[in-house]
């Protein structure tokens, strides 16, 4: 099993936009979105982002499959929060839950689409330019780089189990299955730990001293990039300002 990090689609506008600008505008967008309390405004933002992605040739269908689990998780958490509020006797618990879910959904849409449209090199470069600490950049880098190897190891372990006649139990309460899954996860953690040691030694052997050197810098962002970034971050900011009553003040 291989996890593709690089999108293989042709170049499209969203992908061609400068990575640094996309990342910064995503951060501003998420910051603004997380303060909006009106579900209609959040829904409007979500609609805008989906429309923007479609308009710029983003491979929406492929990308949607990738965000399925984060969305599912956000939904489950929001529902749990709504139920907790409902039982605590709070008014509008359902609407609060919906607001929470929409905020999470918007954040997932913004961040995942930005990352999906960037090459690994571009992502690392953008993070470095934004002065994200090296440790964090390394952590993100290695997570992505070694996702392939871990999934390969997991798939080898699965095959080896199958070859010895193992088959999964039918339900969650099948203790033998749970035991095997637990052992697999434990072994995977141990293997990952050992591999990380070896990778670090291999890096040291080639002169690694803890900092990442950037070998090639992409061109400076242009007007189009800035305009696109402003649009991305501007829409949630606009709704936030509207929520604060700025337009009623203007109308007066």
């Amino acid at each position, binding site marked *: 099993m*291989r996890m593709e*990090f*690089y999108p293989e689609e042709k170049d499209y506008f969203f992908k061609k936009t400068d990575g640094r600008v996309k990342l910064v505008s995503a951060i501003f967008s998420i910051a603004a979105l997380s303060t909006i309390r009106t579900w209609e405004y959040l829904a409007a933002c979500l609609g805008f982002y989906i429309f923007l992605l479609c308009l710029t040739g983003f491979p929406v269908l492929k990308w949607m499959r990738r965000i399925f689990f984060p969305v599912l998780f956000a939904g489950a958490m929001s529902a749990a929060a709504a139920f907790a509020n409902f039982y605590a006797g709070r008014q509008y618990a359902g609407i609060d839950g919906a607001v929470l879910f929409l905020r999470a959904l918007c954040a997932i849409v913004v961040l995942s689409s930005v990352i999906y449209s960037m*090459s*690994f*090199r571009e992502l690392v470069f953008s993070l470095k330019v934004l002065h994200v600490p090296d440790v964090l950049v390394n952590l993100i880098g*290695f997570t992505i*780089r*070694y996702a*392939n*190897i871990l999934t390969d190891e997991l798939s080898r372990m699965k095959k080896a189990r199958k070859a010895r006649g193992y088959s999964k139990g039918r339900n969650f309460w099948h203790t033998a299955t749970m035991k095997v899954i637990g052992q697999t996860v434990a072994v995977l953690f141990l293997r990952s730990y050992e*591999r990380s040691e*070896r*990778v670090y*030694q*291999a*890096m*040291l*052997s*080639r*002169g*690694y*001293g803890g900092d990442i*050197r950037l*070998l*090639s810098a992409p061109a400076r962002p242009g007007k189009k990039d800035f305009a696109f970034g402003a649009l991305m971050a501007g829409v949630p900011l606009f709704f936030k300002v509207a929520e604060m009553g700025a337009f009623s003040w203007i109308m007066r």
Partner: protein
Amino acid sequence: MDYAVEIHNLAFRHKDGTVALRGVTMKVKKGSKTAILGHNGAGKSTLLFHLNGIYLPQQGSVKILGVEVNRKNEKLVRKMVGLVFQDPDDQVFSPTVWDDVAFGPANFGLPREEIEIRVKEALRAVVMEEFADKMPFHLSYGQRKRVAIAGVLAVKPEILVLDEPHAFLDPKSKENLFDILEKENQDGRTVIIATHDVDFAYEWADEIVVMKEGRVLAQGGTEVLCREEIIKGAGLEFPKVVRFFNRIHGLKVEKAPKTIDEAAELVNKLLKNIPQRD
């Protein structure tokens, strides 16, 4: 005599308490092709890690081209000794082949133009130029191994060290590796490999070091691999060519052949000397 590596009474214990090396003393000549043989757990990989300064001596000393390996000069040592790991997946981790080969030269602070030249040369040396922009995870195991070697060659080390270079390689990849090592040695590099493959060591190396339980059992020319007490003591087996000649009773040859071609030539010569019957 100029030595690339001088090790004196080296001992090393791992964090979990396993004693890996128990007083290793050995020397490797400059420009030689040296094979370190031994069964699993003999201490070969631990020894190689000392050559690159990944492990520092807990007891004894290691000198690389006359420079003693210690914390102060480990970076210099890493520039002099290029270490290729057994599993290329431990070593090759960058998003593209080009980036991975450039990793070493970039860490040693070379300018961009020089890095580009070195990456090109290294990829050419391992015949992987056309894969420069590929993602390493999508290459075959043999190709990843070659990328790992290129990553080390790009640093232009004077000593090239490879840990189990033949592990999991198909015959064609083994042949490619043989050619790469030959070329690097002809270019003046000292090449040291740790291996289980006695046939390869016998055919390729001019210096053999046999290890057992963290000690050097024997060191010398390839004739070491023809001595029964060493082969049995180290838990190895005779090279195929040697085994073949050992089984022919009453045959005494001045020098055992090293390759199948040499063996065939010798057999043909012996057959010619047998009087023909009508």
